[in-house]
């Protein structure tokens, strides 16, 4: 063990502390133009008229692009995983969220580009927006997405991610008590210190060099290539230096449009978002609505869980179906519950599209589950640590989607927390390990779910 536990110097540490690290905005090329976006001022609207002619004539303006300039405007970030495309790169005919880009200008200064973007003439016909995921299914809710108000393309034609495990009806019939809770973590903006920025340089070879702050370089390369309908070998991506991302820079936010502007103008183009754009227009962590009802025994076993999750995707699917799938796999948290009935929906709203953020889809359910464990303990008059330890994942337990745990860390983690805060535990709990269940920790209701870790 030469490396684990050792304090090694950061390979980029000297560059960071001497100001030599080159972020995208620090790259200097000759003849560079600046890009600015015309963005939707409305949550939901039809675009009745879009006229860029005045902007195109303005001093210092070299290119204006709209949806008509995009070879493949609608592209799905996860088409390779079977999630179909629904999001236009630039709005075409209507807008689904406030801040959605409609047109972009490349000009010789940021000021000139901003003035030209403002000079683009647009007429909107406002529509009633849907902003609350709980109202998406109401009969009078506005219909806001081509597929309906929630994502309908899960496997087997399902309009939800569902998990059915064990015998949920028996679990609820056998319960001493039903403990219910509703949990609603809000949207969170990633706020990377470096705003979304791209610099695209058209090369004499016909290729594009793209300086990108993406967290997912090859992924972004694929997205740009798809929109342009170009082969990958015409794109040279320069990346890896990210001024904070936290999931928000998985989205390919600036590279593609900058590439279109660079191609149209024949000049290098930089698009650097303002802090205001970061807050108003960039993707966020999703808001969630989670309803949990647990069938529990008076001594603290959880026999079964019914759960309904609404995941706010914002205006387009983007990565949300994937996030909800992870959420569903983790919907029992770090605990073993043998009988499950889970329904999760990816709901469309007229908010900014949501995306990955540090534990995509899982932090929401961890938040809900941990609060719910404490709620169960309080309702039963038991120690919250002991309720957790009793139900904690052990080697050989199975996850909601049938994976047998070989290396669960719940028990040692909870014991360490108890130690850290000086929480007294009864001796039998203090002695717990993560080893396979036996004796009192393997009651009848958990027998059927125990698997063989050797098989996995």
């Amino acid at each position, binding site marked *: 063990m030469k490396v684990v536990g050792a304090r090694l110097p950061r390979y980029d540490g*000297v560059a960071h502390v001497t100001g030599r690290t080159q972020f995208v905005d620090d790259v200097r090329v000759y003849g560079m133009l600046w890009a600015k976006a015309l963005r939707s001022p409305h949550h939901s609207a039809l675009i009745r008229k879009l006229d860029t002619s005045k902007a195109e004539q303005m001093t210092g303006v070299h290119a204006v692009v709209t949806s008509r300039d995009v070879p493949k405007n609608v592209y799905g970030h996860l088409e390779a995983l079977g999630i179909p495309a629904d999001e236009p790169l630039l709005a075409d005919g209507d807008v689904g969220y406030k801040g959605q880009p409609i047109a972009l200008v490349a000009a010789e200064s940021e000021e000139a580009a901003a003035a030209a973007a403002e000079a683009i003439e647009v007429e909107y016909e406002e529509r009633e927006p849907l902003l609350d995921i709980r109202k998406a299914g109401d009969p009078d809710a506005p219909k806001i997405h081509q597929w309906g108000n929630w994502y309908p393309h899960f496997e087997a034609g399902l309009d939800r991610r569902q998990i059915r495990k064990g015998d949920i009806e028996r679990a609820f019939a056998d319960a001493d008590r039903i403990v219910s809770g509703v949990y609603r973590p809000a949207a969170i903006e990633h706020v990377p210190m470096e705003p979304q920025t791209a610099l695209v340089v058209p090369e004499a070879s016909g290729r594009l060099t793209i300086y990108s702050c993406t967290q997912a370089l090859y992924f972004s390369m694929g997205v740009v290539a798809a929109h342009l309908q170009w082969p990958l070998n015409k794109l040279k991506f320069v990346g890896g230096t990210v001024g*904070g991302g936290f999931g928000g820079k998985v989205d390919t936010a600036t590279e593609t449009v900058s590439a279109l502007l660079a191609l149209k103008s024949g000049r290098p183009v930089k698009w650097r978002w303002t802090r205001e754009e970061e807050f108003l227009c960039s993707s966020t962590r999703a808001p969630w609505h989670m309803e949990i009802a647990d069938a529990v025994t008076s001594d603290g076993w959880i026999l079964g869980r019914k759960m309904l999750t609404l995941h706010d995707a914002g205006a387009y699917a983007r990565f949300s179906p994937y996030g909800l799938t992870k959420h569903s796999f983790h919907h029992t948290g770090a605990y073993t519950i043998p009988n499950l009935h889970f329904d999760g929906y990816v709901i469309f709203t007229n908010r900014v599209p949501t995306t990955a953020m540090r534990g995509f889809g899982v932090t929401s359910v961890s938040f809900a589950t941990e609060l719910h464990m404490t709620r169960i303990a309080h309702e039963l008059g038991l120690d919250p640590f002991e309720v957790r330890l009793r139900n904690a994942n052990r080697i050989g337990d199975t996850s909601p989607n049938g994976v047998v745990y070989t290396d669960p860390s719940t028990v040692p983690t909870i014991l360490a927390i108890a130690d850290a805060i000086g929480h007294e535990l009864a001796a039998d709990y203090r002695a717990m390990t993560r080893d396979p269940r036996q004796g009192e920790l393997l009651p009848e209701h958990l027998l059927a779910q125990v698997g063989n870790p050797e098989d996995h």
Partner: protein
Amino acid sequence: MRLTVNGVTREVDSPPLTPLLQVLREELGITSPKAGCQQGGCGACTVLVGDEPRRSCLLPVAALDGAAITTLEGLGGPDRLSAVQTAFYDHYASQCGFCTPGMILAVEGLLRRGEQPNRAEIEEALAGHFCRCTGYVKILAAAEALARGEVQPAVHDPLGQGSPDQPEILVPGSPA
């Protein structure tokens, strides 16, 4: 109009109300001050005017005619780190690196103001400097180590080849 930046006096052509940040980055090509928010809220554009940390995004360059500006490039280069740079490097007080130039100059300014600052004074000096990666713990640890006088400027030798005036970095207790 003239600015002295990192000891070099430069003629500046930008219009008088251009923010110093833009003059440094776009006219002079000095890129360590970052355009994090461009409204004085995040601290990433901080430079020293004289010995005073200032938000360069809010300073019209006309107000600085003749002033001496220090950016992070002016503290120490990769082969010879200043004490504050050494502390940040040794304490892992930089993660993505984007807020680091402003953080280091805020601490540099604090130490130039004199006597060993206490924890509250360090926190006050770093108020308004946002970091989204570290949680500030390591940044504060670096600043406190400096305040205690524990950190000296260091010769750094990333390639392990030594530098002409100090060929070896000796570990404490070395027989050499």
